């Protein structure tokens, strides 16, 4: 199991002598840390927990230079976990603490990297920096803590670290904790940003258990199947190439999945997790798929002679371009504030689909040179708000647009080829009572059809005018002959 920090539990107190965190389910074998802020003059006693773990101090208790603030951090390697796991901190007097109880799972039995521990005290304002020592091994979870003396509303950040913070400086000695997962022995800087003048900082690395994460990056097979997979944190699964099937997948956060190349067959790049970028899947033939499911993901491009699919599920996704030389391309996005198919699905031939399911949707174009295309917008509940199908014409005048507003759950794409405007208006009359939004959609679609009809009418008028001109010429010739 790859090392990670699955739980961070916070408790704050105002005028208290002891606090117990809320319960959380933890794993036996994990490393646990407990940190606390308090008044300078109050002793922070060694914490206890509901699983009878014995904690040790992580360095010394720190105080600021104005004798106002104190911070202590404790840890337990290879601890006992389970359900309802709580930590309790007691104090020598009434105080205003912020306590963090964190679990580091996937850690080595002896996870504490003593050479990495560093502490700093700063009275020069933000940023409040602390730099670790170099690490004993490459794969680690790096944890850092900060406590500041400011009142009012605080706001902590620490670049590169996932942060939990307490912002109420009026009622508590605020502080924050952050972690990051690393795969190199390089020393790490925790640069805490907060407007306070004084800060107490600490940083340390906990080692990942041996074999905790995937190390394979490249798989190459002349034929058959090549698979590269990574499940864990901070892993990069890079290249897989095969004449048959190439698959590169990663399930983690902070993972970058790059390239899967198959000379033939299928290539798949998939990423599941936060902060994951799945970039390119290229198959000379067959199927290329790029998918990302998480928040803040970007699924970029997929190209194949056969099928290219780019999909993203999560908030703030951008699913961009799927371009097969032939076959089918799909761009889809599921989540809130999604712009899926805000760009294009453009196959040279075959079919193209752009779909989005979200509260705020922008779906634009799917235009194949031949074959068919579908653009659909679907509500979060799965109801089809609008669907437009387009059949590429064999001749210009045979172009047909088909609309379906009748059944959200079972949209029918095909409509009679005759009198499409009349069909749309008849359906609109039946559907108007549904709701205002649907009515607006109908109006908008009708306007689109009207515009199309006007364009066709203009073309027809031109053609008639041309025929009339020819007729006039003929009449002139006849007149001359007579």
């Amino acid at each position, binding site marked *: 199991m790859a090392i990670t920090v699955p*739980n961070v539990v916070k408790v704050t107190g105002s*005028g208290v002598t002891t606090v117990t965190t809320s319960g959380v389910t933890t794993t036996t074998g994990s490393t646990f840390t407990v940190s606390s802020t308090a008044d300078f003059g109050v002793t922070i006693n060694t914490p206890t927990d509901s699983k009878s773990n014995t904690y040790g101090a992580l360095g010394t208790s720190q105080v600021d230079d104005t004798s106002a603030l104190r911070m202590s951090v404790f840890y337990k390697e290879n601890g006992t976990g389970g359900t*309802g796991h709580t930590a309790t901190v007691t104090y020598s007097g009434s105080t205003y603490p912020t306590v963090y109880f964190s679990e580091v799972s996937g850690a080595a039995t002896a996870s504490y990297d003593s050479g990495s521990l560093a502490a700093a005290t700063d009275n020069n304002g933000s940023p409040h920096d602390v730099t670790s020592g170099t690490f004993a091994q490459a794969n680690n979870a790096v944890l850092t803590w900060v406590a500041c003396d400011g009142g009012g509303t605080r706001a902590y950040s620490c670049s590169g670290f996932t942060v939990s913070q307490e912002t109420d400086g009026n009622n508590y000695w605020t502080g924050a904790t952050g972690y990051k997962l690393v795969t190199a022995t390089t020393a790490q800087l925790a640069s805490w940003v907060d407007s306070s003048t004084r800060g107490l900082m600490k940083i340390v690395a906990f080692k990942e258990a041996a074999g905790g994460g995937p190390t394979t990056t490249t798989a190459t097979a002349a034929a058959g199947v090549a698979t590269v997979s990574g499940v864990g944190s901070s892993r990069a699964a890079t290249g897989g190439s095969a004449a048959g099937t190439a698959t590169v997948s990663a399930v983690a956060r902070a993972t970058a999945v790059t390239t899967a190349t198959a000379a033939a067959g299928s290539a798949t790049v998939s990423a599941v997790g936060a902060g994951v970028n799945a970039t390119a899947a290229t198959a000379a033939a067959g199927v290329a798929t790029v998918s990302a499911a998480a928040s803040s993901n970007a699924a970029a491009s997929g190209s194949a002679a056969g099928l290219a699919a780019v999909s993203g599920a999560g908030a703030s996704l951008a699913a961009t371009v799927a371009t097969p030389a032939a076959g089918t391309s799909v761009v889809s996005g599921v989540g809130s504030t999604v712009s899926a198919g805000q760009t294009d699905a453009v196959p040279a031939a075959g079919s193209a689909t752009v779909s989005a399911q979200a509260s705020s949707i922008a779906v634009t174009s799917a235009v194949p040179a031949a074959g068919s295309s579908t653009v659909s917008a679907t509500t979060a509940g799965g109801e089809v708000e609008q669907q437009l199908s387009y059949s590429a014409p064999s001749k210009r005048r045979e172009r047909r647009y088909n609309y379906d507003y009748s059944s959200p759950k079972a949209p029918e794409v095909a409509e009679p080829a005759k009198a499409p405007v009349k069909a749309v208006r008849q359906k609109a009359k039946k559907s108007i009572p549904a709701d205002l939004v649907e009515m607006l959609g109908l109006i908008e679609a009708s306007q689109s059809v009207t515009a199309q009809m006007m364009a066709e009418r203009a073309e027809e008028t031109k053609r008639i005018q041309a025929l009339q001109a020819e007729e006039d010429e003929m009449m002139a010739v006849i007149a001359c002959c007579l």
Partner: protein
Amino acid sequence: MAVFLSRASQQYAARGNPYTINATIPNGVTVNSIRVTLTREGWPVGAVGTVTLNFPDGATAGFGFDGGDIPIKGGGGVLAASSCEFSRSDIDGNPIAFPVGSYSLAFKVLQTARTAVTVERF
């Protein structure tokens, strides 16, 4: 923020068994943090009591407090209420919601004291 448990100020006599107050968070409500507040109304010096919040899933959390006049954080006055706020977050730093259902607050009184109890959810 919403108050889901409130008891007006009253005197609690010291006793071995804790006083128990029950409240329910209904289905469909997301609770990312819970704060328990006790007004400090002339509490006697020394340990006054402890509060244990029992969650619907069997988990617990709590805090303890002393009496007497204690300065507010950073000085400048006497603290009017003791409080404690609980929350938790996942691997990405996002809040982990507390379960809905029946909560109970066990208030163990070591010295007779007057207080009002408020439990808020956020």
